[in-house]
């Protein structure tokens, strides 16, 4: 893949324009700065959440609303999550629901509206929860939130002895054989989804020029870095240059999950069936190489008992790439894959060294201690990037 000269125009658009970012994403970036100044933030109590839910359901016109069996869900690194039972007139049996709500600031700032649109659009294509209610502006809940149906299943085997957070380090054990083909089928189904015909009003496709898919991701995360990172890092400065100079063209825009990995799907332990693909908050229209590269990231895999690295604990790398091509009919371009390996590893650097550290320092999250813990993995991604950019890793 030839690098394009920086600053040259491509179909009228400057490939180096740092302000060329998907419009809704740009709004979220500005919202982040407004929210940051409102901190610090404390974890919501069950009572606060229950009162917010009652306000929301009252506004829907429901009568005799009762929120029961409220339980906070731990394990995620981004949003406050609760499951609860909704009782109200007109429901013969209570409805079990899940609330996913923004803290003041988190490891990744996104829109519940976009997340709800993505889940709703993809439901039926892959297993997802059903979006039941949305409070995008936090009018009732106090913070932006989306409420979905409760889906049975687990994100890791219940006898899992690993201590990783956010599903990292999950060993699927004997379940891996059954999960692997479903994991692959669902990824291909997401990429084959007809997003052009779907109702996705908060999304914009990067179709103005062929490099826009790559540069929207680059510009988005450079902007996060610039408005969030506590200090500069020489390798990150070089990465920014490299990403702008080596952006690949994309002529096959797909719907991208953008966080498709171990820990972000549920499965039924008895049947082995995948019951839900989770965490759609980063979904966007882009290049399929982005998701494929994401699955292969070191942090989201593990080394098996034979010393072999398994992507997401499910496949050896080459087997995953081969089976993806075979099933999707798409051809993976090695240089584009490398570009998105850098993009994904670098996004994780931004999440850890910029967002985790800044949000924890500001005290703007419900689990600042988790964010300061997660920040230590940024070095693992920087080490990977050294290799991707042709450097010689120190061993």
């Amino acid at each position, binding site marked *: 893949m030839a690098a394009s000269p920086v600053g040259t125009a491509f179909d009228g658009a400057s490939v180096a324009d740092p302000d060329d970012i998907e419009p809704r994403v740009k709004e979220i970036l500005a919202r982040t700065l407004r929210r940051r100044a409102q901190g610090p933030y404390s974890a919501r109590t069950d009572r606060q959440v229950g009162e917010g839910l009652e306000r929301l359901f009252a506004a829907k016109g429901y009568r005799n609303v009762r929120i029961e069996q409220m339980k906070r869900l731990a394990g995620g690194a981004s949003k406050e999550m609760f499951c609860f039972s909704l009782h109200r007139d007109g429901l013969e049996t209570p409805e079990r629901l899940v609330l996913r709500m923004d803290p003041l600031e988190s490891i990744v700032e996104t829109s519940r509206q976009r997340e709800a649109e993505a889940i709703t659009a993809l439901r039926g294509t892959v297993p997802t929860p059903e979006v039941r209610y949305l409070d995008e502006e936090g009018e009732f809940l106090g913070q932006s939130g989306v409420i979905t149906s409760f889906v049975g299943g687990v994100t890791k085997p219940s006898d899992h002895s690993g201590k990783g957070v956010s599903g990292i380090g999950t060993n699927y054990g004997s379940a891996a054989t059954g999960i692997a083909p479903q994991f692959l089928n669902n990824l291909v189904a997401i990429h084959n989804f007809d997003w052009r015909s779907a109702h996705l009003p908060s999304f914009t496709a990067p179709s103005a020029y062929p490099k826009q898919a790559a540069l929207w991701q680059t510009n988005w995360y450079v902007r996060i870095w610039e408005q969030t990172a506590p200090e500069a890092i020489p390798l990150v400065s070089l990465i920014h240059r490299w990403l702008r100079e080596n952006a690949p063209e994309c002529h096959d825009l797909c719907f991208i999950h953008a966080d498709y990995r171990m820990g972000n799907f549920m499965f039924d332990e008895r049947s082995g069936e995948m019951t839900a693909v989770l965490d759609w908050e980063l979904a966007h229209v882009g290049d399929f190489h982005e998701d494929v590269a994401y699955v292969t990231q070191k942090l989201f895999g593990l080394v098996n008992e034979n010393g072999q690295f398994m992507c997401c604990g499910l496949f050896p790398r080459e087997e995953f790439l081969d089976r993806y091509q075979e099933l999707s009919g798409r051809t993976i371009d090695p240089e584009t894959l490398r570009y998105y390996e850098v993009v994904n590893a670098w996004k994780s650097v931004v999440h850890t060294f910029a967002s985790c550290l800044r949000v924890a320092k500001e005290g703007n999250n419900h689990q600042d201690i988790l964010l300061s813990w997660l920040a*230590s993995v940024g070095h693992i991604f*920087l080490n990977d990037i050294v290799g991707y950019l042709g450097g*010689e890793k120190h061993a």
Partner: protein
Amino acid sequence: MTPSIELRIQTMMKAMTEVILPAIESGNDLAREQGQLMIAHLGLLARHWDKALAYDTLCLGELIRLAKRLCDEASGGPRTTAAAAALRELLHSHAPDGAVPATQARINEVRVALAAGIDHLVRATEVDSSAAFHAGSAKAILDHAALQAWRDRVWFADAGMDPERAGLPSIEAMLTGAG
């Protein structure tokens, strides 16, 4: 005699493990997870606290060497040469003769200043660097980053999240150059 930092960390970990964590009700997963993270953080603090100054001194020394290398090799148009001159001035004022400051606060200050200066220089290379310095700056930064990422992975290996941590040396070996 005063109670040592080791002893205080050790007693906090014991209190968390044996008294506070078991007292958290079984359904309170958030409190339980944060309690476990406190124990993990304290364990890492116990490993780090008496080596932190040596570690940060080593890292800043390498950053100073990177900045000097970039200044020595810089070539190109007015933006690149101006950014290189600014970095050279930062080196002169913050780390004369390549010396690393003695205090933690000053080390942090110099690291932030030099990293910002390098960032400005790399941005300038996008505008008018010579081809040689475009490649040379990448090589210099990658050489530095390879060693720095390795050191940082060693420093945080006990967090248990590095899939290749089994191949890393101890912090002591890394600091003494025996790794």
